[in-house]
């Protein structure tokens, strides 16, 4: 038996280029005739725009064009779409206000785009952007989710600033269980807003080719095909096959580079108007103002227990701040990816979760690192830990008492767990943390005038965001499958095309391990290609811990087909029946007889 490459410690294939400065990030791409864009952004959280004057900016040195919302409206450029439909407690669709690429008469958050200047140099574009005169009439603004419902309307379509009220679980059963509880633990939570801040700022470089009427877009994105689909089908009305999106090396995403952003659309549209490449790279201040933010929940959560500490029910009410507009996946984060995780590792028989999603005059909020699931785990584990302390039970003991031990287990919040062993993981963690020795360590710390604490969190994650039929039934407006293609060259080396996208995950190594292991090749004989819609058939990209689970599975399915074809060829070469051919790590053989290496069956 050869040792498996899967899971083996190997040096990363991508490291050499990153360590020698040979990585190719979007801002590194320079095209012939390159121009540069700068955006004029609102300094107000909420204001009417009375007038935008671009005359001075248009006369500034190096300026090629200045566009405002009026230009985009005249060109019938659409708004940014939302990719997930949430249906509210009354069966009504969520409120979807228009999300303009450049402001249309009103700005709704600080940093919203009002105009874009295109110039010969980045510095000239920025200088000219300062010459665009915008006459704002400030309006009352609301930033806090708690005050959103009692504030003036941000969008006509949502007079109370509510996007939806959504619920999951059996409310009556939960209320009944609480009525007979021996103990109730109740907590208020603020899960604060944060800025993702990938170290590479967002960037885009769009170029139009008159030769074949095509547009190529280099963009720091986690999912180039999704970017292309949303931009062509919903915003610019371009044929999808005439647009190529390349997401080259990307310097971290953390969710913030999943979405279709207005800057991407504006640069693409401008590049087509001007027949010149248009590049924009965010500075760090723009990243703070315009990258989709994360979290921002206010939650009241309650856990009902019987006198022995068995969980009877959980009740969670969350107000989620979506910001000023609906970002690409904003609607599913505080709902589908949140409430479904509230069972955690426990047998809580009934759970009810109600989420009120509100608009505020803040930067839009969307998926960030874990996206809804960490928020849920925080709620569950804080409740459980607090309940243990209130009931004076060892926190680990209370958890053990309530662990799910029979699988499959259908939770009251939609998910069905196929397998798990929570006792084993808790025990392992307690051993590593030396819980038994904690008392001594705490006393030692006290003697040194320091405080030492110990807390538990038992965690379950829903990785992958798939399969498509489940996602679709929950409101996803696209399937959440993945594409993988394995191309075998005549010499036996292999190129793998994946719809997953790496922005720090190391797919070029991980996927090569999977493929090399199965085909009995060296990792250097396997190349992984990702991030270019012109090379890869399709892809849903990387987020929600889906690369190896979904993208990796697609590659393995493709490998199955390659092996099946290899068996046919080996059968012919070995003059045996196809059914008698066995395959293991690059070797085809007729049971007990001749062997043939994988490279011999390749089409060379």
């Amino acid at each position: 038996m050869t040792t498996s490459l899967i899971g083996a410690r190997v040096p990363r294939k991508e490291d050499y280029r990153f360590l020698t400065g040979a990585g190719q990030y979007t801002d590194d791409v320079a095209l012939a005739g390159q121009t540069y864009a700068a955006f004029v952004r609102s300094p107000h959280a909420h204001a009417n725009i009375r007038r935008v004057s671009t005359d001075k900016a248009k006369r500034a040195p190096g300026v090629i064009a200045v566009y405002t919302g009026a230009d985009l409206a005249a060109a019938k450029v659409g708004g940014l779409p939302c990719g997930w439909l949430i249906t509210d407690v009354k069966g009504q669709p969520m409120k979807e206000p228009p999300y303009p690429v450049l402001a249309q008469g009103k700005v709704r958050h600080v940093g919203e785009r009002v105009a874009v200047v295109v110039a010969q140099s980045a510095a000239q574009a920025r200088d000219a952007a300062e010459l665009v005169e915008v006459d704002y009439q400030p309006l009352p603004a609301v930033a806090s989710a708690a005050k959103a419902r009692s504030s003036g309307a941000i969008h006509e379509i949502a007079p109370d600033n509510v996007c939806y009220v959504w619920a999951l679980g059996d409310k009556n059963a939960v209320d009944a269980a609480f009525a007979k509880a021996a103990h109730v633990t109740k907590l208020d939570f603020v899960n604060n807003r944060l800025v993702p801040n990938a170290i590479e700022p967002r960037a885009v470089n769009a170029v139009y080719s008159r030769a074949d009427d095509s547009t190529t877009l280099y963009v720091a994105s986690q999912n180039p095909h999704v970017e292309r689909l949303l931009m062509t089908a919903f915003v610019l009305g371009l044929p999808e096959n005439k647009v190529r999106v390349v997401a080259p090396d990307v310097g971290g995403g953390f969710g913030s580079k999943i979405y279709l952003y207005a800057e991407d659309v504006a640069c693409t549209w401008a590049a087509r108007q001007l027949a010149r490449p248009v590049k924009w790279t965010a500075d760090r201040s723009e990243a703070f103002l315009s990258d989709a933010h994360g979290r921002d929940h206010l939650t009241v959560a309650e856990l009902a227990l019987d006198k022995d500490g068995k969980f009877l029910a959980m009740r969670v009410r969350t107000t989620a701040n979506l910001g000023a507009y609906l970002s690409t996946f904003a609607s599913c984060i505080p709902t589908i990816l949140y409430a479904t995780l509230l069972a955690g590792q426990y047998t809580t028989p009934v759970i009810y979760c109600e989420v009120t999603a509100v608009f505020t005059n803040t930067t839009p909020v969307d998926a960030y690192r874990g996206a809804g699931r960490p928020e849920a785990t925080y709620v569950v584990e804080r409740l459980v830990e607090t309940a243990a302390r209130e009931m004076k039970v060892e926190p680990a003991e209370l958890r053990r008492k309530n662990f799910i031990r029979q699988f499959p287990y259908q939770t009251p919040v939609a998910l069905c767990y196929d397998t798990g062993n929570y006792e084993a993981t808790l025990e392992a963690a307690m051993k590593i943390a030396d819980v038994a020795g904690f008392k001594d360590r705490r006393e030692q710390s006290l003697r040194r005038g320091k405080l030492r604490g110990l807390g538990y969190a038992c965690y379950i994650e829903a990785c992958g965001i798939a399969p498509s039929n489940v996602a679709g039934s929950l409101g996803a407006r696209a399937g959440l499958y993945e594409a993988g293609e394995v191309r075998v060259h005549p010499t036996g080396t292999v190129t793998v095309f994946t719809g997953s996208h790496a922005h720090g995950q190391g797919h070029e190594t991980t996927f090569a391990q999977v493929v090399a292991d199965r085909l009995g090749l060296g990792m250097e004989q396997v190349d992984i290609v990702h991030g270019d819609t012109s090379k890869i058939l399709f892809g849903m990209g990387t987020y929600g811990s889906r690369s190896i689970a979904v993208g990796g599975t697609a590659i393995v399915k493709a490998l199955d087909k390659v092996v099946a074809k290899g068996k046919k060829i080996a059968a012919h070469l070995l003059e045996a029946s196809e059914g008698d051919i066995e395959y293991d790590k690059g070797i085809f053989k007729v049971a007990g007889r001749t062997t043939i290496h994988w490279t011999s069956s390749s089409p060379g």
Partner: protein
Amino acid sequence: MSVRVSMKVNGKPVSADIEERTLLVSFIRENLRLTGTHVGCDTAQCGACTVHLNGKAIKSCSIVAMQAEGADILTIEAVAHPDGTLHPMQAAFKENHGLQCGFCTPGMVMNALDFAKSHPNPSEQEVRESLEGNLCRCTGYHNIVKSIMAGARAMAAAK
């Protein structure tokens, strides 16, 4: 206003006519097309733009190119041996998984090279303090610290 600047970059003399306000990092990236030096924050916080100026690590986003007139500049592109073999510090980053997305990496390596000159066998604490001006969003720093400790020792051993 345009101004002529001349300096040595990676051992080669270079000169160009540039706007006076051109930052050193823009000169390196745009004029010389050495794109291994990155801009992460444009405010001297993140260190992705770190290069060596006369042997000292500096943030190239925070000085104008004119200030480097006549200077000797080293960027990440010239750190490895000319035959492509990684420098011991680069090799240590690779061995210790000290990078993920790679964007902060050139700045990390350039800073570490300068630090290691005066710290042949640094403690973890010293390395962590040396990273005060370099931000990474992927790794959580732990493996970067291990990389720099190993790299500094390897550099000292190679002397």
